[in-house]
């Protein structure tokens, strides 16, 4: 039985929280201004419903917000931490990396830190250099952390629920540009989604396109255009960056022989490099050509809309790159 209704990502977020709050008293949320709904409305109505002890407004004290969550998690609760913009999490990096990520290990398994650190991520209408970053690669590099990068309302709901129930610290990075995008959510399916499982968004045999977060939508747009030229793309939405779903990507690459990884983050040192080099190493003999990556240039995000646009990987960029991959392959076989 399904009960699909269309809702925005922000609404899917409040739905997930409402469901988990109702199930478990140990779940609570803290962050600046979340009592009045949060910057993007992703907490709308929750303080009225669950009270100020469950939806806690805080001082502008990012280090304390995260540190308090860590301490509270050690004592048995499951705090959902709102960082407002992923950029501000930089004000709490010791708490995230030296404390949350390491506590279980340092203390030999005596402790766990089941927190969800929400970090709205990426471009958002000329928010400029200090409000636009995509730093998922940092967290994926860090032992102890799970990193989730959802792209749809249904995933925000299903993966946020899973993140809340996970016994590890989870960095949960909603794409800022997608809060108002609507998508179908199945009200009756209250099960959390599995962390670490990719979603196939489109099937095809010519090229595998792996992406996550906002760029999934761009990749799908590109896939449409490629289909017009009879190039069929297998579009995989990774959803979780760590652990990432190697099986799904490997299986697809074995079929298509071509892989393009696309993300909004800076390409240099981005997590695309991990995926590309892992697949290059482990599926080398299935590859018809080199794995390609597309990401932002290594520049801060500019304010003027046309400067900001230089960060964006467009559907056109993807189409061009895929066509080049296929042509290079053909040249090769023709020679």
């Amino acid at each position, binding site marked *: 039985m399904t009960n699909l209704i269309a809702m925005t990502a922000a609404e899917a977020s409040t739905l997930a929280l409402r469901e988990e709050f109702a199930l478990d008293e140990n779940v609570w949320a803290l962050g600046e*201004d979340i009592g009045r709904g949060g910057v993007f409305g992703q907490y709308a109505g929750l303080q009225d419903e669950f009270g100020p002890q469950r939806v806690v407004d805080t001082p502008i*004290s990012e280090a304390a917000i995260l540190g308090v969550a860590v301490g509270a998690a050690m004592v048995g609760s499951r705090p959902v931490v709102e960082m407002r913009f992923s950029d501000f999490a930089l004000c709490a990096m010791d708490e995230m990396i030296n404390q949350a990520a390491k506590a279980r290990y340092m203390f030999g398994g005596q402790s766990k830190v089941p927190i969800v650190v929400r970090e709205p991520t990426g471009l958002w209408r000329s*928010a400029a250099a200090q409000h636009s970053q995509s730093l998922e690669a940092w967290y994926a590099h860090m032992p102890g952390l799970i990193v989730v990068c959802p792209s749809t309302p249904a995933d925000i709901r299903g993966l946020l629920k899973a993140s809340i129930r996970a016994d590890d610290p989870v960095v949960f990075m909603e794409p800022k540009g997608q809060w108002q995008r609507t998508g179908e959510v199945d009200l009756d399916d209250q099960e959390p989604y599995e962390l670490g499982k990719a979603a196939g968004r489109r099937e095809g045999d010519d090229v595998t396109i792996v992406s996550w977060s906002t760029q999934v939508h761009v990749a799908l747009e590109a896939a449409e255009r490629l289909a017009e030229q009879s190039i069929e793309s297998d579009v995989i939405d990774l959803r979780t960056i760590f652990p990432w779903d190697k099986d799904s990507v490997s299986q697809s690459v074995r079929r298509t022989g071509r892989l393009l990884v696309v993300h909004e983050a800076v390409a240099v040192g981005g997590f695309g490099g991990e995926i590309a080099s892992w697949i290059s190493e482990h599926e080398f003999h299935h590859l018809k050509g080199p794995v390609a990556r597309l990401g*932002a*240039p*290594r520049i801060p995000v500019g304010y003027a809309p046309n400067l900001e646009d*230089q960060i964006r990987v467009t559907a056109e960029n993807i189409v061009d790159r895929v066509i080049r991959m296929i042509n290079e392959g053909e040249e090769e076989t023709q020679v």
Partner: protein
Amino acid sequence: MNAAQPGPDGLIDGYLTMLRIREFELAAIRAHGEKLVHGTLHPYIGQEAIATGMCAHLRQDDLMLSTHRGHGHCIAKGAPLAPMMSELFGRENGLCGGKGGSMHVADFSVGMLGANGVVGANIVLAAGAAHEVKRRGEDRVVVCFFGDGAVNRGPFLEGLNWAQVFDLPVIFVCEDNQHSASTRTSTMTGGEGGGARARSIGLTTIDVDGNSLPDMLAAGKEAVSIVRSGQGPVFIHARTFRVTGHTATDLAQWRDTEEVERHAAADPLPLLRARILSEGHREDELLAEERRVRTDVQLAYDKALASALPPATRAFEDVQVTGNPQIGAF
């Protein structure tokens, strides 16, 4: 002392600077509605006396660090309106070439070392600027503006302590508008707030009505004289009110209307205007000067509107000297 920096006792000059800020903000809000200004805009409306009274005592080579709500500081420090407005419009001839926008507006040529999108971050940068000024043996003064919300961030403690330990020429101005975004700051602040904390760290502290230009002029004067003569850092706690919402689009409807109305009635601009007239200044002269301010702002708006966007290739410039990416490089 340039046009934007009135003499310490010049209420009229101060009034006109405040009006320049107010008119600039109103124009910027309008332009934001017209989708000419992008991103988030934090208006300085209602707080104009603070930047004005403080900056009246600064030389052009004095330095200043500002916040997300930085237009007023920038104007009071003497930045020209047209390149400022161009920056907000994201144009090539903006102060930052369109790269920074409202939250990163800066004019290093007048010592305005930048607005900052991270609450409280400018406090440690200001300590650093002052550290360098002192290391060089210069008599420049550094001013650092921030809001009442910033007093709960770690860099507040670290920056003030640093300034005190190294006895630095810096004035910290806490603009206590009683709000941080949609929060009443008092509910999130232990003890008596910024001033008490500054005193506990050893700083000389001045408490002042930030809605009164005469009071702010006096406080600024005292602070600058202490700091410029090498007597260490000063903290000014300026009480004011945020008349608008947090941003240009925030209605802040959760606020008590009585309170908002009471504070709107304490709007420093009409009060100051009335005082100036009551002290015998001719209204027709004032009207003429006010018209000039409005014309200046309108000109800035028109100029910004007529200006070109930056060429897209500019996105690849000014990243770094070594390892700057090539244009189009991913």
